[in-house]
């Protein structure tokens, strides 16, 4: 059954979109990742214009983050103060990101920047996940043996120190502001929540306890992606609510099933599978960037 998407201006199969939402939702339920970093490139592969894929995916992530954060909220795993500081940086970053997005679109470089960002980050994250999962499989050790960095570096000399009680931290506010800003820019450019960068940054850079990391990250992702959704809709008209709705119906159902099944599945094998998928998407995007295009002439946005 085909459905015409009013903003993307193409028709796609309804069940393909529901299934896609379900599959990515399932993965996000199992691994606790947002899935935007897989969904946006796949949308581009099936023919959705890259700017619409990015704007629409931000909208869908709002929904999945809300359903995710509510569960963490009940368990008290959200550091509101830290979340708010990250959020201030995130709002500034995503606003800047949407402006940058419009500028790049105008000069015809947005596709390149989206694809390059994906190749870089998917390659990095996929590679790390793959290595980590392999190591875990061979050594059968409990994961997360990195330990906290308690060395005093230049980071601890930054001004504007703030106390974050829930995270048991006394650090400069500039740090979470900077992390929030950086992830906000990526969120706007790539159509992702940015959890896959935010979470490691919170653990290794800010030194937050792992228990509050995911909840706090999800908390601020809601607002940052909502900001991206609003600005993309307002400035670029690239949010397709019909597409977002179809994806999120699949995604929320898939995520719940994934979360329920995650305890019964073999974590490492699945992690390797996810890493291979991430690397596969990365390779496809990289291949498209480097092989001779079908036509060196392309049509840009008309205005």
């Amino acid at each position: 059954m085909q459905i015409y998407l009013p903003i993307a201006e193409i028709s796609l199969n309804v069940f393909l979109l529901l299934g896609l939402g379900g599959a990515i939702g399932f993965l996000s339920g199992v691994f606790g990742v947002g899935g935007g970093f897989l969904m946006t490139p796949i949308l581009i592969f099936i023919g959705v214009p890259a700017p619409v894929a990015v704007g629409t995916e931000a909208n869908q992530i709002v929904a999945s983050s809300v359903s995710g954060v509510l569960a963490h909220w009940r368990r008290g795993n959200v550091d509101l103060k830290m979340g708010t500081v990250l959020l201030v940086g995130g709002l500034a970053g995503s606003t800047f990101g949407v402006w940058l997005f419009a500028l790049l679109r105008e000069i015809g470089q947005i596709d390149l920047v989206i694809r390059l960002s994906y190749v870089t980050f998917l390659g990095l994250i996929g590679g790390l996940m793959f290595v980590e999962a392999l190591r875990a499989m061979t050594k059968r050790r409990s994961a997360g043996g990195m330990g906290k960095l308690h060395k005093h570096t230049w980071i601890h000399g930054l001004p504007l120190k703030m106390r974050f009680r829930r995270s048991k931290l006394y650090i400069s506010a500039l740090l979470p502001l900077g992390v929030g800003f950086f992830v906000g820019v990526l969120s706007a450019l790539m159509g992702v929540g940015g959890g896959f960068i935010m979470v490691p940054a919170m653990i290794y850079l800010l030194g937050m306890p792992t228990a509050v990391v995911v909840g706090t990250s999800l908390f601020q992702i809601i607002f940052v992606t909502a900001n991206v959704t609003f600005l993309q809709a307002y400035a670029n008209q690239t949010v397709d609510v019909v597409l977002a709705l179809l994806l999120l119906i699949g995604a929320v159902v898939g995520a719940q099933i994934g979360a329920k099944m995650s305890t019964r599945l073999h974590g490492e094998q699945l992690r390797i599978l996810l890493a291979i998928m991430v690397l596969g998407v990365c390779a496809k995007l990289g291949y498209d960037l480097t092989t001779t295009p079908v036509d060196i002439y392309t049509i840009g946005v008309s205005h």
Partner: protein
Amino acid sequence: MSRALVIVALAVFAGLAPKGAKAVPLLADTSKHLVAITTGFTGDEVLVFGTIDEPGDVVVVVRGPSIPIVMHRKSNIAGIWINTASMTFEQAPSFYAVASSKPLDEIARPNVLARHELGVENLKLEIPRARASPNVAQDWRAGLIRNQQRRGLYPTMVNEIGFLGERLFRTRIEFPDNVPTGTYQAEVYLIVDGHVVSAQKTPLIVSKVGAEAEVYDFAYQNSALYGVIAILIALVAGWLAHIAFRK
């Protein structure tokens, strides 16, 4: 004089206008005047049909509204293909289709085909002269045509026009699912001995209708409110999912 008029009128009325009568040499219409893009839209086709009053060749052209089109050209920089040049066509048809009763070059001389823009290679696709030499301009033009052909918006071949007897003709024009909206023109030309002796233009509207149109218009006219609603839908959906699956 008046007697001649009566004869012509009678002849036309009877559909038997004698050779040489120039009153209504060509009559044409389209099977529909609105191509409606609805939820299940996967493309559409429109029949262009009519009757000619003297033996000759018929060419049918359907063109979408002219729009400015921005083009980019890629080059390989350090192994990556990057857009390094761009060019704007101020006026290019957003859609173009052509059908003919015979190969175009057998119907009329190139200057006639060019004057009426018959055939995709005869489209007037102008770019600012100062921006490019003729060779370079030709590359950009060819690039634009190839892109539009890949999107199914320009034809890769000239459609056939079928005749029923010598007078009645008809042809099918296909619109893909990504057809641009706007007011189209269906143009029918009657060409005798290499000259256009008659032409008729019929407007054809391509428009989103129903929910599709409302969502689109809303997104473009009330962008801020559209953004807010998109967020609200997502918030509610996320909350509902949480409620539904809480044990």
